[in-house]
């Protein structure tokens, strides 16, 4: 089973310099934080989806469709119930509270989609060399990419442990959340211990291949801004100016 997000494709976005991709990600986050109205936020979400479509990673976004829907529902309901509004619709729901809930839902989902598009188009090594070039020390950036590397391993371990305990009669499907929590203890210990063992192994393998030896570490990947990177910056600048213009007018 492939649990990595990265999609080995050759699209415009895949070819960008990792620093540009990091910038696009931050810009996307900025957009989601900046807007408050659901209408604009729908626009932002569409923008993310188009970005995903052009980077050929819609399949990855669909893989998390349930969490995305769940987050949307959850925020609409909780904010809908808790925010006080002046135009009641039904029960404690008001026009204002629903609008706010919808806005939060769109913000969170847009961020998730932007993150997935970023991880689908950028290799771990690219992220790490990208952040190094942005001035982050190598060891910090390498830890970041190792953490990303460990996620699929963790998921695989968890899947196997769940199957092993189910074979021993452990039924995780209980309606009661406390029973479920209690029943997950037999899962946590093996997952935890297996992960520690893997991490120890990994540490030894890293050292044995010269990790942290030379101060002048070289990089096999070449990172260089090209025409398309400058193009992206120009487009993002225009978008930012347009937004500013719209805001000033309205």
């Amino acid at each position: 089973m492939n649990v990595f997000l990265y999609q080995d494709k050759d699209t415009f976005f895949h070819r960008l310099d990792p620093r540009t991709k990091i910038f696009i990600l931050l810009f996307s986050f900025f957009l989601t934080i900046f807007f408050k109205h659901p209408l604009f936020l729908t626009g932002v979400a569409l923008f993310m989806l188009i970005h995903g479509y052009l980077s050929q990673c819609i399949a990855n976004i669909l893989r998390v469709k349930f969490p995305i829907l769940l987050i949307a529902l959850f925020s609409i309901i909780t904010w809908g119930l808790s925010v006080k509004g002046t135009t009641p619709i039904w029960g404690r729901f008001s026009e204002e509270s629903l609008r706010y809930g919808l806005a939060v839902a769109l913000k969170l989902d847009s961020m998730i989609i932007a993150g997935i598009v970023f991880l689908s188009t950028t290799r771990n090594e690219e992220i790490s060399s990208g952040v190094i070039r942005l001035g982050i020390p190598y060891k910090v950036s390498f830890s970041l990419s190792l953490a990303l590397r460990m996620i699929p391993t963790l998921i695989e371990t968890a899947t196997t442990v769940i199957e092993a305990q189910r074979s021993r009669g452990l039924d995780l499907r209980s309606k009661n959340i406390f029973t479920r929590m209690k029943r997950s203890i037999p899962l946590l210990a093996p997952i935890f211990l297996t992960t520690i063992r893997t991490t120890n192994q990994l540490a030894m393998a890293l050292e044995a291949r010269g990790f942290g030896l030379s101060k002048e570490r070289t990089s096999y990947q070449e990172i260089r801004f090209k025409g398309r990177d400058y193009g992206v910056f120009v487009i993002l600048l225009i978008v930012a100016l347009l937004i500013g213009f719209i805001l000033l007018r309205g």
Partner: protein
Amino acid sequence: MLKAMDSAVSVKNLSFRYKHGREKVLKDLSLEVPSGSMLVIMGRSGAGKSTFCACLNGLIPQLIKGDLEGEIRTLGLNPRDRKVADFARFMGIVFQDFESQLFSTTVELEVAFGLENLGVPRTEMKARIEEALRKAGLSKLKGRAPSTLSGGQKQRLAIASALALNPTLFCLDEPTTDLDPQGKDEVFSITSELWKNEGKTILMVEHETEEALQAEYIALFQGGALKEFGRAQEVLNNIDLLKEAGVRPPEIPHLFHLLGDYPLPFTKEDAIRRLSSFELDKDLSSGLEENDREKERGYGNEVIGIESVHYDYPTGVKALNNVSLSVRQGEFLAILGQNGSGKTTLVKHFNNLISPRHGKVLLKGEPIQRKSIEEICQTVGLVFQNPDHQIFCERVEEDVAFSLRLLGLSPHEISPRVDSALKAVDLESLRHEDPFSLTKGQRQRVAVAAILALRPEVLILDEPTTGLDYLELQRMMELIQQLNEQGHTIIMITHSMWVAAEYARRVVLMKEGRIIADGKTREVLGTSGKVKEAGIKPPLMVALSNRMGFTALSIEEMARCLKRKSI
């Protein structure tokens, strides 16, 4: 005796105790590894083989803490004076667990990692990566993600990553234990090439005796000390010594040892020549098949039946393609096939861990979907390959009792069941111990006991002997055989052909999600050409006995049925 300069590794009076460890793992060990040689280290689990390897490049005591005494020279360098990372240029190390030593997103970047650390300029790097990948036979897979490679390819990639740094010494710690036979061959052919053509010194820890025959020297470790060191053939034809050290003797010398025909031959060709002075005792060999038939009469009703089952992985790859199988009560079945042929996916249908896309799974004649988890786990027990994926309690007996508590049994129902399960796996004396302080073989038996306590009729074991030493393996297989004799139906996945040949009474061969042969062990392994079609090697004894006009499934059967020609 060799001069110090001629030794790639020279160790004198080496002792080591792990921090928090009760006993020394290495005790006064002295060993010289000649430069440019290939040495295989063998011995029981816990004999100190891996510990020895970790001392050579400073992993002990720098990353793994403890008390280290004695003198170590690796390529003339003292590992205590240098960082582990610094040793990467001189000594490459490859571990058993190939998953956790690869961390890059492409094969090419994986090999680049070490070169980047050494500060090799980019222009030079490209050539060195290409050379290393070519020698490991991975050039075509340069752009692939390591996670998509087969086990053998992953281990070759780990070798290539070390090779790119151009070390003169390679230390491989059980590199083939977790691989299928094809993967094992791949790794051995590369290491012997590095030794013969590249002049590297190879140090390898290995359980597989047949492969160790290719080595130049063998070091037998026992209880943290060197028991024997010598030319591979000399050590490996000392059958009694090997048995004493807990190492499986190679099949050919072992056979001739039993036949009392000395000096012992090593190669298949020699064996065939020497067998010409023996002939088959027809009375005894026909008795073998009679025996097989006798056992088959004792089988009961069908316990597991699957009919035209199809299953696809989420990625769309076909894992099972129209598979049908019927297992009767009391059978002992081995499922063989290469990695990825669908063996594990198949057995996961037997206890409803996965449901087929098409087709039926019947448990004692009823659709398995209609049964509850409680019912299923008391009929079918599945022991996973890695015991550490299921053990979680602080004491052995608690772990064994876990499933029984889930079923809501009362304490006085639980304790006799725990007792008898622990007795069956011979762990009564360790019942109060922490499972994580036990050896792999013992943990494997805890896992079996935990399933046995549920008293399932069917016991499924996924590679129950992987990573066990010869004595642990024999013990495990004797246990499984006993359980079968007591009436349990056994379904076992294994890569070890001789284990399947010696113990199973029925063999199912799988290839690319299909069953390509299913029948009595002697017929499937002996007479059909399906074994080769499945991409696995027929057992050596089968190949030799076929030349003598019968099918022997073990060395003992072979030796028993042969007699010297009267002149």
